[in-house]
C-alpha cells in the first residue's frame, strides 16, 4: 500500500491545516513451545496506511484495504471529523527528510526456521535437565519498515529489524511453587543470541527458581536493600518514565492508565536523593526501543527525567508539547500501523554511579539483596508501588547469607528514590513490552540501571 502515500498526502493536504500519512509494515515470525511441544509456528505481514488530519480537532484514520476509493473515503471521513471542535495543537517542529535503518550482523532473513527452532530446543533441553517442569518458550523476529510524510514536507523512511525471546517457567517441589519470566529484546539481527548469552542466562534463572522454591520467608521489618539492575529497571520505568509522560500529566490517559503525581509546574520538585539521575534514551545502539526519528518525525535524543533527585524533563510528542507551549523531545511512538502516536518511553534507566557491588554490600549489616522481581504493580498516578522479589537473598554483615522467598516491598516513588544512598557503576538492561493507550499499544522497551543500595526499607 506504500504506493498510496504520495497520492494520499497530495489529496489530503488541501483539506487540513496539517496532514500526515504513514505506511508501516511489520513482518513477523514466531515459534512457541509449550513443555517440549512446538505449539505454534507462524508468520504475519501486518501493514497498512494511517492518516492524521488536524483542523478544529485531531482525527486519525487507518485502513489496509488497497483501493484508492476506500482510502479517499477514509481521508474524507477523517477530515469531516477533524472539523468538529476539540483540541488541535501540535508543536511547531522542523520537517526532516531522511532515512535510517538498524544494521543486522546476522540477517533475520538468512536464519532458517530450523535454526530458530534449534535455539528453542537447546533451551528446552537445558531446562528439562534442570528439572523445570513448566516451560513456555517463544522466539520472535520482526522487520518493521515505514514511510511517513506530512503536508509540511517531512519524509522519513526507516527499516528496523528486531529479535526477541520470552520464557515463562514454573517449578514445583514438595508443594512449593515458584514462577519466573525472562524477556529479552534486541534491535538488529540474530547476533542477539550471543549478545544475550542466552543459554547461560536461562540456566541461571532455572537454578535460582529451584532455590527460591525451597527458600523461607523472612520476618517483616526494616532492612537495607541492595537492588539489582532488573529492579532498578522496573522502578525507573514505572516510577520515573511513566510519571514523566507529558500526556499523562495533561490528563489525556485519565480514563485508562491514569495520570501522574507530577504536575505541569513540578519541574525542580525533589523526588529522590541527589545521587539519583533517571534517563530515557532512544538512541542506545541495538536497544529494543531504538529509533532515530520518532513517530512525529522529530529527532530522537537522550532525556534526563530526574536530575540530582529533581524532576527535570517531561517526555513529549508534538501533541503534548504543543499543549504545554514547548518543543517536542522526540518521544512519539505507535505500536502498529493503525495506532495513533502517543508519548512513550524507549530505554529508561538509572544512570550509573561509582560503587562496586562489593562496596555496597560490605556496609550492610542486616539487609536484602533483591536480584529480580515477580509480581509488581503501581497506582495510576505512579506513586504507590509494590515489588515482590523472585531471586532474593538475606545479607548479614556484608555477606550473602541465604536465599529467601518472595520478599515484598510496598513503598512510594519518593520514598524509594530518597532512600538510595549508593549507585553502582555497572549497567544492565532487560526488555519489556510497555502497555499504554486505548486501544492498548504495547511498545518494545529496555529498562535498566546499576545495582543500587537503599537504607531502611520496610520489607515483609
Amino acid at each position: 500500500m506504500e504506493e498510496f502515500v504520495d497520492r494520499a498526502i497530495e489529496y489530503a493536504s488541501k483539506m487540513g491545516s496539517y496532514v500526515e500519512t504513514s505506511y508501516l509494515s511489520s513482518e513477523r515470525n514466531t515459534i512457541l513451545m509449550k513443555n517440549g511441544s512446538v505449539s505454534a509456528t507462524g508468520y504475519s505481514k501486518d501493514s497498512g496506511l494511517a492518516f492524521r488530519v488536524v483542523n478544529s480537532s485531531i482525527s486519525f484514520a487507518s485502513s489496509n484495504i488497497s483501493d484508492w476509493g476506500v482510502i479517499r473515503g477514509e481521508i474524507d471521513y477523517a477530515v469531516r471529523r477533524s472539523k468538529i471542535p476539540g483540541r488541535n495543537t501540535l508543536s511547531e517542529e522542523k520537517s526532516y527528510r531522511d532515512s535510517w535503518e538498524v544494521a543486522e550482523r546476522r540477517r533475520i532473513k538468512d536464519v532458517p526456521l530450523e535454526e530458530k527452532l534449534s535455539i528453542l530446543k537447546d533451551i528446552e533441553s537445558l531446562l528439562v535437565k534442570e528439572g523445570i517442569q513448566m516451560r513456555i518458550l517463544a522466539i520472535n523476529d520482526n522487520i518493521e519498515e515505514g514511510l511517513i510524510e506530512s503536508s509540511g514536507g517531512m519524509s522519513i523512511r526507516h527499516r528496523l529489524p528486531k529479535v526477541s525471546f520470552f520464557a515463562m517457567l514454573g517449578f514445583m517441589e514438595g508443594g512449593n511453587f515458584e514462577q519466573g519470566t525472562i524477556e529479552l529484546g534486541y534491535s538488529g539481527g540474530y547476533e542477539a543470541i550471543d549478545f544475550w548469552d542466552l543459554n547461560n542466562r536461562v540456566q541461571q534463572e532455572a537454578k535460582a527458581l529451584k532455590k527460591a522454591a525451597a527458600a523461607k520467608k523472612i520476618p517483616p521489618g526494616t532492612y537495607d536493600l541492595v537492588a539489582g539492575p532488573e529492579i532498578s529497571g522496573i522502578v525507573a520505568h514505572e516510577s520515573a518514565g511513566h510519571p514523566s509522560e507529558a500526556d499523562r500529566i495533561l490528563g489525556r490517559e485519565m480514563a485508562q492508565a491514569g495520570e501522574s503525581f507530577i504536575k505541569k509546574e513540578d519541574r525542580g520538585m525533589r523526588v529522590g536523593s541527589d545521587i539519583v539521575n533517571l534517563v530515557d534514551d532512544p538512541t542506545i545502539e541495538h536497544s529494543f526501543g531504538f529509533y532515530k526519528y520518532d513517530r512525529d518525525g522529530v529527532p530522537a535524543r537522550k532525556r534526563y527525567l530526574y536530575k540530582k533527585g529533581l524532576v527535570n524533563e517531561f517526555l513529549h510528542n508534538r501533541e503534548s508539547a504543543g499543549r504545554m507551549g514547548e518543543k517536542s523531545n522526540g518521544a512519539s511512538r505507535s505500536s502498529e500501523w493503525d495506532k495513533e502516536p502517543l508519548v512513550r518511553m524507549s530505554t529508561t534507566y538509572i544512570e550509573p554511579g561509582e560503587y562496586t557491588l562489593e562496596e555496597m554490600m560490605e556496609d550492610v549489616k542486616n539487609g536484602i539483596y533483591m536480584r529480580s522481581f515477580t509480581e509488581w504493580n503501581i497506582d495510576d498516578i505512579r506513586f504507590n508501588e509494590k515489588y515482590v522479589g523472585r531471586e532474593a537473598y538475606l545479607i548479614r554483615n556484608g555477606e550473602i547469607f541465604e536465599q529467601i522467598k518472595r520478599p515484598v516491598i510496598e513503598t512510594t516513588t519518593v520514598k524509594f528514590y530518597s532512600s538510595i544512598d549508593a549507585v553502582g557503576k555497572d549497567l544492565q538492561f532487560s526488555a519489556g513490552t510497555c502497555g499504554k493507550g486505548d486501544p492498548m499499544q504495547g511498545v518494545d522497551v529496555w529498562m535498566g540501571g546499576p545495582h543500587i543500595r537503599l537504607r531502611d526499607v520496610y520489607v515483609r
Partner: protein
Amino acid sequence: MMDLNKIYEKVSRVSDQAAVKKVTSRTTQVRFSNNAIDITNTWNEELVTVFLAQGKKTFSFDLRDERALEDTLNRAVSALKGIEENNDFVSLNDRKNSYRTKGNRDEKLRLLNPQEFVNSFIDQVKPFFKRVGGVFYSRSISEEVATPFNSGSQGQFGIEFVARAFNDKDYPVQTSFMSSSDEDFPLLEKQGEEIIDLSRNVRNIREGEEGKFNVIFTPLCFASIVSYTIPMASAFQVDSGMSMFAGRLGDRIGSSIFTMYDDPLEDSMINAKLFDDEGTPAQRTPVIEKGVVKNYLHNFSTASKFKTETTGNAGIIAPTPWQISVEPGNESIEDMVSSTKKGVMIVNTWYTRFQDYREGVFSTIPRDGIFYIENGEIKETWRSIRISDSLLNIFRNTEGITKETKKVKWWDETLPTKSPYVQVADVNISRSR
C-alpha cells in the same frame, strides 16, 4: 476486498486441513479528557488468518493483502517441511455443524453519533465535576470461517462507553457500559446520572487502612477479577501448568453461591459468537459452578487430549474465553451495604499481577471509588490501598451476590462481562509503608 473462498481454495490445496478466518471491522472511537475531545480514531480493516496442518505439522499466517498470498503460501509450504510435529494438534473439528441465529436488535445503537453523544455527556456531568474523560467505541465486525468440514458467517455491532470523572478534591469515580442490544439503550443514556450518583458517596477522603475487610466488589471491579481468572481455564494454560485450575477439575474452590460462565450466547454483549475459529458452535460453558471447577475451555484438539468434548472456544492454537457471565444472586445492593458492619465497597481496580499462578496469589490496585462502610453507611472514601490476596480465597469467601447485574467492558482490564455486585469476607488489604 479479500475473498475468503478463493483464499481457502488455494490454501487447502497445499495442506491436509486448513482453517481460514476473515474478519472485517469498522470502528469509530472518540477519546476525551478534561472536558474536551482529544481525538477521533477510525479503523477500516480486513484481516485473514490461515491455519494449515500437514499431518501433525502446523503453521499459521496472517494476511492483510490478498496479493501477498502466493509468497506467503510458498513460505508456509517450506515451513511445513522444516518444522517438527505439533503434538498438541489432533484435528480441526470434523463434525458437520449448524448454527443458531442471533436474537439482538441494534438499530438504535447504530444510529448514535459518537462525537455528539460524548459532547452531550460532557455537558451533562460538567456541573458536578471538575473534569471528566473517557472513551466511546462503536464497532461493527463481520467474520467468516471456512474449514474442510464447516463454514459460516457471523456479525456483531457493539457500543462501549467509559467515563472517569474527578470531583473538586480531584477524587475520581468511573462508570462503564457495554452492549449490543437496543434494550440497553436507556442504560447508556443513564451513564451520566450513574456517575453523578456515584460521586455523591465521596466524603471524608483519606488514605486507606491495612487489614482484613469485608469487600463489596461492584460489577466493574468483579468483572476485572473474573477477567483475570477465566483465561487460566483455557486448556492451553492448564496444560502448561501455569494455572490455578490445573489439577482442580471437579474440586470445590469457591463458595456454593458462585457460578461463572464463558457465555458467548448472550447476544446483548459485544463478543457474542455463533461459532469458534474452527467452526464449532459456541456454547455457554460453566467454568465454576456452585463453587466447583466444572469445565476447562477447549478447542477440538485440546478436548481430544483431555478426553472430553470441545466447548467451542477455538483459538486453534490456544482456546480462548469469549465473554463472561457471573450468575446473579438474590440480594440487593442496598441491603448488602446496609448489612455491612465494617467493610469497603470498591468500584474499580487495575494493574492485577500474579506472583503464583498455581494458587492465584495476586495483588491489584483499587481505584475510582473506595468507600469505607461502617454500620451500614458509607463513612469515608479511601485511596492508596492494594488488594493482596489469592483468587482462591476470594472465591471461597464469597458470601453475597446481588440480583442486579451490569454489562461492562473497560480497556484491557476487563473482558466483556455481565456481573452482579459480589460481597467477599476477609479480603486482605495492604498499603505502602
